[in-house]
């Protein structure tokens, strides 16, 4: 169920009027998600789902109780308010209590396109058909998913804050597997506006990558020079970003903690070519204007020229430490360079071109050791040329070492993320790094 700003505010005002608490916050979100999956060149499952939820948090005597519902009639709203108050009264006093935010000055994040918001499943079927057709043309089996979403989020407080944002999303991702089921390729994209989504290009790239009949080369585990395509870079940068939490660093349980106490803010931890920013106004990967707890997202660097400059900080921790609260971001921009992937390949004596990663997970938080596997398009590079498809490998790689060893960056490109999964996608460049640690072979294709 998609609500306009006025409709969302009317509901939020009702909730606030029902409240008998010291303070109250209301979050409302919803919209329409539509998706379509296909496999071996034909449709499998599809879905259109109208979602809605409202969360009321009541603050009573420095205690906060919350209740969420999915239907917004007056009786349900009043019951949710009463229940959240009942919960609050039963809870212990919060020693780090923070009162709701008052009015904020938000920037504008351009993430909504009316035409995209009004798409139906036939548009997704058309996008899928382009992939299927390209697969048939060059003789590979095609698999994939197309999704569109029209979403809104509203946040209101009894301290006179009301914020509303909406977004439209579309994504298409496609996997192509050769007819022997012995090799695969992948491509995908996510956009807020459908006119920026090039389904033909996704189809071409996925099928081109998947159309290899040669037996993939097996590489022995070891340290290799790798070229990571933007979707692979994003996966690694995302893990770095999600560990950048101030409280854990301040308390000594993070890789960003300084031995003896405090965080490593201001320290040069990475290669000077590494800069990661968050910006609601960024044209490639705009973050939402309204962040967690109603905090405004501002343009800021988390890493600038290799120096750690910012960590996320909740309002409660910020209040306790006398610091600025900084909301967690899912959309970030990793600055790029001017090297093309072809340039990078030409510079590599022996290495691997990686399309994307799979099942990445932190193994050790202290040294940010990440594991995972390559997937859907590894290619062996020898003497400046791609010479063969290469079997997938598991890696165990410290992120600090990886981002300290950047040899070249390509232009920053918006990457893929499933529509509805957090409301956007990061932007990152292709990246040439040395000493990437492949730890074992995988037969997975």
């Amino acid at each position, binding site marked *: 169920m998609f609500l306009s700003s006025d409709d969302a505010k009317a509901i939020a005002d009702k909730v606030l009027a029902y409240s008998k608490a010291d303070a109250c916050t209301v979050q409302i979100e919803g919209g329409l998600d539509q998706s379509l999956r296909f496999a071996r060149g034909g449709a499998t*499952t*599809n879905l259109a789902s109208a979602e809605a939820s409202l969360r009321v948090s009541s603050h009573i005597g420095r205690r906060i109780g*919350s209740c969420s519902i999915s239907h917004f009639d007056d009786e349900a709203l009043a019951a949710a308010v009463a229940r959240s108050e009942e919960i609050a009264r039963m809870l212990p006093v919060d020693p780090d209590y923070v009162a709701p935010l008052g009015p904020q000055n938000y920037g504008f994040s351009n993430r909504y396109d009316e035409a995209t918001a009004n798409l139906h499943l036939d548009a997704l079927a058309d996008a899928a058909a382009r992939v299927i057709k390209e697969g048939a043309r060059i003789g590979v089996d095609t698999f*994939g998913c197309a999704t569109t979403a029209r979403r809104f989020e509203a946040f209101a407080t009894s301290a006179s804050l009301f914020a509303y944002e909406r977004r439209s999303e579309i994504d298409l991702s496609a996997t192509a597997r050769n007819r022997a089921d012995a090799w695969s390729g992948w491509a995908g994209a996510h956009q807020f506006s459908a006119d920026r989504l090039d389904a033909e290009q996704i189809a071409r790239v996925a099928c081109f990558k998947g159309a290899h009949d040669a037996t993939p080369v097996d590489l022995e585990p070891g340290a290799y020079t790798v070229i990571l395509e933007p979707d692979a870079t994003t996966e690694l940068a995302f893990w770095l970003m999600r560990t950048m939490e101030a409280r854990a660093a301040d308390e000594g349980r993070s890789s960003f903690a300084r031995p003896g106490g405090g965080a490593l803010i201001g320290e040069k931890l990475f290669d000077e070519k590494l800069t990661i920013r968050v910006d609601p106004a960024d044209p490639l990967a705009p973050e939402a204007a309204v962040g967690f707890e109603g905090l405004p997202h501002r343009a800021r660097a988390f890493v600038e020229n290799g120096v750690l400059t910012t960590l996320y900080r909740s309002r409660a921790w910020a209040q306790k430490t006398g610091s600025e609260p900084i909301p967690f971001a899912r959309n970030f921009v990793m600055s790029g360079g001017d090297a093309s992937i072809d340039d990078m390949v030409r510079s590599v004596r022996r290495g691997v071109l990686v399309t994307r990663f799979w099942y990445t997970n932190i*193994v050790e938080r202290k040294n940010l050791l990440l594991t995972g596997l390559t997937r859907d398009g590894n290619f062996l590079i020898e003497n400046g040329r791609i010479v063969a498809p290469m079997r997938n490998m598991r890696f165990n790689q410290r992120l600090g070492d990886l981002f300290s060893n950047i040899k070249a960056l390509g232009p920053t490109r918006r990457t893929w993320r499933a529509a509805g999964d957090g409301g956007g996608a990061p932007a990152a460049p292709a990246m040439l790094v040395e000493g990437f640690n492949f730890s074992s072979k995988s037969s997975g294709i």
Partner: protein
Amino acid sequence: MAAVAAPSPIEASCRSRSAFGLNHVLLYDLADIALTAARQSGASYADLRIGETRREYALAKDGRLENFDERESQGFGVRVLLDGCWGFYGARRLDPQSLRDGVERALENARAVKPIQFQPIELERLPVHEAEWIMPMGVDPFEAQASEKADLLLSIIASARDHGADFCSASISAACEERFFANSLGSRIHQTRTRVAPSFQATAIDRASGRFATRDCLTPARGAGWDYVVGAGLIEEAARAGEEARAKLDAKPVAPGDYDVVIDPTNLWLTIHETVGHSTELDRVLGWEANFAGTSFVKPSMLDELRFGSELMTIVADRAQPGALATIGYDDDGAPAEAAEFAIVEKGVFKNFQMALGQAHLIGLSHSNGCAYADSPTTFPIQRMPNISLMPNPQKCSFDDLVSDVENGIYVVGAGSWSIDQQRDNFQFGGQLFYEIKNGKLGDLLRDGAYQGRTTQFWNSLAGLGDASAYHLDGTFTCGKAEPMQVAPVSHGSPPALFRNVRVLNTSDDA
């Protein structure tokens, strides 16, 4: 799990109340409205799920209750088969007009995919059921007071901190799903199930070196009520966790190499889940998950042929095990739990895939086996795991017996970091606690371990298996699969088991 009795399909003694705001008559009326509309519009098959889900999540960190949230959502999803094409629509409003509109949208969606439906969807003939099933449970977790839950969380944290932890976070999740399923063949099934998941993490820090170590809760999520949480000994376990997190800071690092490994059920459940549970899902094998969750190294030609593991390995699927997270009377296609009682691997040989509606004929079988689940009434049901467990050794074999058979080995307890390739072959799993085994005796605590392997090689190295006295049921609320991602609850039981020559890594020095 065949070793225990199945619950009765109708369990009137349950203390859980029905959370539905709708009575039975209205549910049946809504079903008739939707399914009649679908039939009249030409659908050859249609089904409807109406449901209400209640969730509760409480989180405390150190001395602070950070979040206490109750969530309640209602909704419906209607699935139609029109001219060989699926169409699905889900929404939150439960009234006759919304149901009629939903059917129309589902039909529109079926028409929309027609241009790319080159192979029509075919369904097997489903049996018709009219039934009610309620999971047996002690105390409804939604009836327990918020203050009691907050007190428990803060007590867990205090216990860990009193015993060596510098920090501790603790949480309790609870969910209750009520579902009404109806299809155009005449099935009408009303079910309720509840689950709880206590969790905590204790952290100890060596400030001088900057090192830190964590020890996560080993008490599993269960299909159970609040009485399970209260009786789980969480405060006592938190005390041990505080001590063990502290001890890990000074523990000897694991020396990387090949070891005989005794794996505790608190760790082995996740290995079963990733290597056996996911690899034997037929939708993956057919390529339906190739774009995201992946395919499988297992192929239909391997039925009754693949030597998956040693003779000790028998893995069964079921939906009837008391206390398990995927236990239910009927799956989300309306297939009864009995359909989901089958061996996946029997004495090391691969025997059966897991299947949902419309898949069996693609490998020459006549019917699916009760493995469908939708994580919300508003999402499309897909093939998901029932409970999948490693059967205990029928011969007497204790944990000590397993350890005594190891000259140079490692004992692994608790699930840590995990990762497996998209065909479910190459895996790497961490743990919470690693102990040295020397000359048949359990030795010192080790730190920074993980083990790596290839699925069939690993299971064929299964050389010892505990008996039923050491059987333990573990599991998760949140197994992810499909696009858009759906999460499913599932349990996996096992005794401790001994595997020979497993590669063990040191995660701090042997990256």
